[in-house]
């Protein structure tokens, strides 16, 4: 844990009188799949939005690759190497799948107005590389056959994959996925799991909000559990599963005894 890729410490965020997050800290090691779970309204997506610059936090620090990122603009966060997907899919609906991924290359390319108008050799080469990389990423995520379909015409599961492909196009060190398996059936979730493991194997650290407990427990190296804006547990899936406060948050008071009783038998 000495060299954390992402170290979040003491994040607090209030919306008016509501404290969405209170003193949340967590630390993600490079190469991990780090899960963020918790009941609805626990503050998971708020934490994501703070991490990616959509919201500013009231207090706290975000250290990513030895750079402080709290209250940085979303495009600067992307440039620093954090890419994300959205809980409610936010693709560029009227652009093709290929164009969606090409937009993801924006932050790693340079062509400006003059270059675009003159279309000189540098621009042409960059444009060709952008398109080629986009094709590779579509293929990587298993949606190459839909390259020229409009994003909004893709099947739901493919839209989720396209969001991942678009995020990967920004060459992130950390990929933050907000409920990637939401609404997927067992087969689709299985395929998604394969994709996520492949992304990890290619050296990208994953931060994952997910409700599918089976997926989270099987996939994640470490987990943090949020409840009412506080981190109530952190550890390996096995540790978290046995944590009394986690069981209580999910199943209510009294559930701990029931779980222990069930364990004893």
């Amino acid at each position, binding site marked *: 844990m000495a060299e954390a890729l992402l170290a979040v410490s003491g994040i607090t965020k209030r919306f008016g009188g509501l404290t969405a997050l209170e003193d949340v800290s967590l630390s993600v090691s490079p190469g991990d799949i780090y899960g963020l779970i918790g009941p609805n309204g626990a503050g998971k997506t708020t934490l994501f939005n703070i991490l990616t610059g959509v919201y500013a936090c009231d207090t706290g620090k975000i250290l990513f690759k030895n750079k402080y990122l709290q209250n940085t603009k*979303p495009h600067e966060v992307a440039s620093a190497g954090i890419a994300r997907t959205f809980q409610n899919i936010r693709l560029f609906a009227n*652009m093709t799948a290929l164009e969606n991924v090409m937009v993801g290359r*924006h932050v790693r390319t340079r062509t400006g107005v003059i270059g675009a108008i003159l279309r000189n050799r540098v621009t042409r080469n960059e444009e060709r590389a952008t398109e080629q990389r986009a094709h590779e990423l579509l293929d990587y995520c298993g949606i190459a056959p839909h390259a020229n379909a409009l994003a909004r015409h893709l099947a739901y599961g493919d839209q989720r994959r396209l969001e991942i492909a678009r995020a990967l196009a920004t060459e992130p060190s950390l990929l933050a996925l907000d409920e990637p398996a939401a609404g997927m059936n067992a087969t689709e979730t299985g395929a998604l799991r394969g994709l996520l493991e492949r992304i990890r194997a290619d050296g990208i650290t994953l931060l994952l909000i997910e409700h599918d407990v089976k997926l989270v427990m099987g996939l994640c190296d470490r987990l943090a559990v949020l409840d009412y804006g506080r981190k109530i547990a952190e550890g390996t899936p096995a540790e978290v599963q046995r944590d009394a406060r986690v069981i209580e948050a999910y199943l209510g008071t009294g559930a701990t005894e029931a779980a222990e009783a069930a364990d004893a038998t």
Partner: protein
Amino acid sequence: MRRFDLEHWGKFLLLAIALVALPFLIDAALGRAWVRIIDIALLFVMLALGLNIVVGFAGLLDLGYIAFFAVGAYSYALLASPHFGVHWPFLALLPIGAMFAAVFGVLLGAPTLKLRGDYLAIVTLGFGEIIRIFMNNLNRPVNITNGPQGITLIDPLQVAGFSLSKTYMLGGLTLAPVHLYYFVFLACALLTIFISLRLENSRIGRAWVAIREDELAASAMGINTRNVKLLAFAMGATFGGVAGGLFASFQGFISPESFALLDSIMVLAMVVLGGIGNVGGVVLGAILLTALPEALRYLGPMQEQWLGRVVVDPSGLRMLMFGLALVLIMLFRPAGLWPSKTRQRELAGLTVQPAASGKHDG
């Protein structure tokens, strides 16, 4: 890799000949007034393409676009007329007008960055009116714009003693000022078409469309939405500014009433009717909407010819028919006369896609 295939270049050559011959053919067939209308149409092509960058590509509804046309026109007029006694050459003035307009584009864009849709429309509408009212009132205490009287005797385009306001004879052809301006405007319009197309299919163009589609997702993909939006305002304004300068030199006279809200709406109508976001459609919209009100002037003589007398006053009927035409176009072609590539693909995608996804599943 550039392909020099004969058919391609043949078509290109035919189009070039047609464009060169056009003013003379129109002159012969319809009269010189129509050449003038074509000239104005070309200016509107530039304007509509400029607005298309803001509204069509970046999705920022701008109802005060004519202000940039005004800025371009006034910066030309003030620096090339007896009003201040300054007569700068137009080759210097066009870039100055473009730059001025771009600065105003950024000035308008900066405070509106967080606004979208209706709110942005209201603010831009206000901006357009502010510029017009400024032009109207900046004659006191120091007379800058000459107020509602406008600026007269603006210099025509002139290069090395060759003035576009004179008539020349070339072989058997009479080259009147309207013909000469046609070629200048055509060159400028073609250049704006070229720039629009290049920008559309570039990293910048994709960023604009991404912002139109989903601003939050665009910023999460690393697009600096502030800069990219300001760039759209500046580029759009630049086109408007150049068109304004050309307009001032062509008319020789400008006044604030040339830049009213209705003109902003007209340019927007060209963009929407032609096919928002599609360069070809916008060009078509600009030409049609400039020519249609003029063509409807013939309603008077037509009534005389067919009915023996003028039954309905043509000036009233003209705008009625114009409005009716707009309504009909929007009813039958809701995406515009020539919809953008995206919309075409959308239609094509409906037939292609099931096969593609079937292949994927199997």
